[in-house]
């Protein structure tokens, strides 16, 4: 079907006399490195020559204040409309200023055809290490100067780089699809065969004769899922900790690039399954930004309420399991927090029918309006929770053993946090007052009066206090949102995404066609690319979407907070005891579905 959707036209950006933008400053400074600039939906993306990337990035960080490397991703352009045999791969970097909230993107077309290479940014941002490994793993782009370039999510001997467009989904060799005569049958029993393009690098384990290598996980009570930490121990002291991830990798990005925008929503539930609502919100906002649609105020307020309830629920799970790490399963707080979370899950069940994988916030609005008893139930939460949080505080905040265990453990300075790309409560506990709800408000967060708790100590105890205070601030936001809950529709009126009303179908042929197209094909965004991030309970959750003007995303990348935060494990645990390593993993508050995706 080749019906053309008239909604693919891009609205012109207003241009007026103003001080030079960051892009213009950079273009003046590096005339040879900056090859072009484009702006789409307010996002500026500069195209940078590979040789100039390091210099431009350093200037961005040191001179222009873009100190946070938000997102690092890549695209294979070979199937893109208009691709004419230029460089096939590009990498994209999104930088955010933690002071002003400004964002700029750098795009680098990688030379080298099918075995591309770009300079590594790991020397500037230590946190570029894992994202670059991820890009190398899934897209096959090499990073020159990377300290430890090997696969991260897939096994070392995986035969291909699955996010490349010439690799079909599920295209890896599966032995039982062969017949006896196949010569490949010799690899039977070895489902994964050796890759020719990838040199397996053994994990760097230092002197194993002197130190004990302890495999914590993937089955271990306190790694919060299928995380494996290879801990190098000298007695009980952790010499180094290497997190090994990928056990839960399910190729969500590849999957997302084969289905329509709206069909990817249930997958977001299953990434960070402890805060599904926040993931729904992040993805919906990214898609809406790509589409350029407005969401009615009622839906926005409901979204804020749901996202904050989810933040409460997520922090409750964190609190319970964190204490469990420090005390063992017998500690009472675990069940207390789960009792409260039950109340929140009941609310989610009330509005969406599901408790864990909710898919309630959708691109275009929310699934359905909230039922009448919703307000009452949320008011119950508002009434009960302050006392409950005080109760938790009475249980452990002043407990001498907890103080001894949590203080001074897993320290991170603000510089280390920014360098490692750590976001969320970890960043704020280290003294950086950076919260996307304040820095780049979305869904009307600018209308609420709330504080971003910040502490400077940067240890496990500070993060504990920051998260407890965040729960109280969430309650404040919910209270204000409930009081100002407007009436009105909960789905966008923009016909690019909204179905025509039923009565119009009887009279208007155009409406009927439009209805048919939306139902069969799905909504179609214009060509372009956006990156949008929200403040997930764990940190910055970002979605990078590239549209080629069809109803299926051309490229869909998830910037997962747990993935980036988990990188800090080694920095935080080095030199401490094995008991602290457990607390460090707990204080990062990882969800393995989010890490591996």
């Amino acid at each position: 079907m080749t019906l053309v959707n008239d909604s693919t036209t891009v609205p012109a950006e207003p241009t007026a006399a103003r001080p030079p933008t960051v892009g213009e400053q950079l273009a003046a400074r590096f005339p040879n490195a900056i090859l072009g600039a484009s702006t789409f939906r307010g996002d500026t993306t500069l195209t940078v020559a590979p040789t100039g990337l390091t210099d431009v990035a350093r200037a961005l960080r040191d001179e222009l204040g873009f100190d946070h490397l938000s997102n690092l991703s890549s695209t294979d352009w070979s199937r893109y409309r208009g691709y004419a045999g230029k460089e096939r791969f590009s990498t994209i970097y999104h930088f955010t200023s933690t002071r002003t909230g400004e964002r700029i993107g750098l795009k680098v077309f990688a030379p080298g055809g099918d075995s591309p290479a770009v300079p590594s940014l790991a020397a500037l941002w230590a946190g570029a290490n894992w994202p670059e490994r991820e890009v190398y793993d899934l897209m096959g782009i090499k990073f020159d100067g990377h300290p430890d370039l090997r696969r991260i999510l897939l096994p070392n001997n995986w035969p291909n780089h699955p996010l490349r467009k010439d690799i079909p989904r599920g295209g890896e060799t599966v032995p039982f699809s062969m017949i006896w005569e196949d010569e490949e049958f010799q690899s039977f029993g070895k489902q994964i065969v050796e890759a020719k393009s990838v040199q397996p690098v053994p994990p760097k384990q230092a002197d194993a004769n002197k130190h004990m290598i302890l495999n914590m996980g993937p089955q271990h009570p306190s790694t919060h899922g299928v995380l494996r930490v290879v801990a190098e121990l000298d007695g009980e002291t952790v010499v180094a900790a290497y997190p090994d991830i990928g056990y839960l990798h399910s190729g969500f990005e590849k999957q997302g690039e084969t289905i329509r925008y709206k069909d990817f929503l249930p997958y977001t539930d299953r990434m960070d399954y402890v805060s599904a609502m926040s993931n729904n919100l992040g993805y919906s906002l990214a898609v809406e930004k790509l589409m350029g649609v407005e969401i009615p105020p009622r839906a926005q307020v409901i979204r804020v309420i749901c996202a904050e309830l989810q933040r409460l629920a997520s922090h409750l799970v964190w609190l319970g399991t964190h204490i469990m790490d420090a005390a063992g399963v017998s500690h009472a707080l675990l069940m207390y927090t789960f009792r409260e979370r039950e109340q929140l899950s009941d609310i989610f069940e009330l509005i969406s029918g599901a408790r864990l994988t909710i898919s309630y916030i959708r691109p275009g609005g929310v699934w359905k309006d909230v039922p009448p008893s919703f307000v009452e139930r949320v008011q119950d939460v508002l009434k009960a929770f302050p006392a409950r949080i005080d109760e938790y505080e009475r249980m452990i905040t002043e407990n001498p053993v907890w103080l001894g265990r949590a203080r001074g453990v897993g320290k991170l300075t603000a510089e280390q946090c920014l360098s490692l790309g750590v976001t969320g409560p970890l960043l704020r506990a280290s003294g950086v007052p950076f919260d996307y709800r304040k820095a780049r408000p979305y869904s009307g967060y600018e209308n609420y009066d709330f504080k971003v708790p910040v502490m400077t100590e940067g240890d496990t105890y500070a993060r504990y206090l920051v998260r407890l205070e965040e729960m109280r601030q969430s309650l404040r936001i919910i209270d204000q949102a409930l009081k100002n809950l407007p009436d009105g529709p909960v789905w966008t009126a923009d016909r690019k995404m909204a179905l025509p009303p039923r009565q119009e179908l009887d009279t208007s042929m155009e409406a009927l066609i439009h209805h048919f197209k939306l139902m069969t094909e799905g909504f179609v965004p214009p060509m372009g690319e956006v990156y949008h991030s929200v403040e997930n309970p764990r940190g910055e959750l970002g979605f990078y979407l590239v549209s080629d003007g069809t109803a299926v995303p051309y490229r869909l990348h998830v910037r997962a907070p747990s993935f980036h935060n988990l990188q800090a494990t080694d920095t935080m645990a080095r030199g401490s005891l094995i008991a602290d390593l457990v607390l460090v993993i707990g204080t990062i508050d990882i969800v393995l579905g989010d890490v591996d995706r």
Partner: protein
Amino acid sequence: MDYLRNFFVNLARSWTAWIGGFLPDWGVNLVNYLVVGIILVLMPVIATLTLTWMERKVIGRIQNRIGPNRVGPWGIFQAFADAVKMLIKEDIVPSGADKPVFNLAPILIAGAAALLWAVVPFGRGMIGQNLNIGALYVVAVGSITTIAVIMAGWSSNNKFALLGAFRVVAQLLSYEIPMVLSIATVVLVTGTMRMGDIVERQVAPFIVVLPVAFITYLLAAAAETGRAPFDLLEADSEIVAGYFVEYSGLKFGWFYIAEYGNLFAIAAITTTLFLGGWRGPFVSVAPALGPFYFVIKSVAVIFVLMWIRGTWPRFRIDQMLAFAWKVLVPASLANLLWSAIVLQIGRQPEQLGPTIVQMILLLVGNVAILAVTGLLLGRAARRYAAQHGWAGA
């Protein structure tokens, strides 16, 4: 009625008289020893069956749950269901394990748990053997546990078990010293090591005379048996299950039995040494009440330990060792010294147990030691906080 007043002793007398009717003297002794022995050996098993149920219920209520409620009324037969499950599970010996040692460890640890009961006085005259070195025996038998745990950790060929064994060496050996020192204080004050006589001479329960010794003993005993907050040997969130991670089936069951047998035993010894044992109102009239008082007091101690387990985080190994060596050992040494001085003041020849004046002096000294210890601990905590940038907190 008179028979009921001293029911247990009278029962034993009637039993002895009855079997004495058709058995020679040596036969009566043999049968009696066997019966007492079997009862004592069964004590850890009985303790396990009752205390696991109690622990689940108590922890359940602390955690805002109901606890087991399916097997029998209030779930009281849950422990039997667990026992059956444990019996019919597969017994796995990991490849590479040191088999003889691996198999010996659970027997040794359960044996040590049973041996402790020999010197526990349940009531006046109700004691397996009123050994003249009873207190020393308690300490000595307790050390067998250490050996068994190291054997289990070493022989399992598992790194988590080995880490557990490392911790055992450090922890159990460190906490033995404050434990011995606090027992020594009681021995010094009563002038006897016989457990039965210690109870006889406790005119006032020593918890109000020697609170420092009581607290030290309870903490050290909790550490010795690996109870929270000192459960680093088996820290489930860190080293999974520690030294017994590789055990399954009945061998695992022996560790379980030893754990609860030891828990009951330390509660019983705490009761004997510090809570006046079987003493209580009307015991002089009706000695049969003694065992009831004894069990009630022991269960109260166990309840406190369970309460701690439900609400306190776990120590870290360095903090735990520092706590033993820098807090418990100095405090109990000071207490021992003060007791020795006080007992020399106005000492009567042939004196059994401390006099009222001595008890008051002991209490004053103990309160002073507690105050100084608390003060120093508070200062140390503030210093530690300041080190990590938490000044003024």
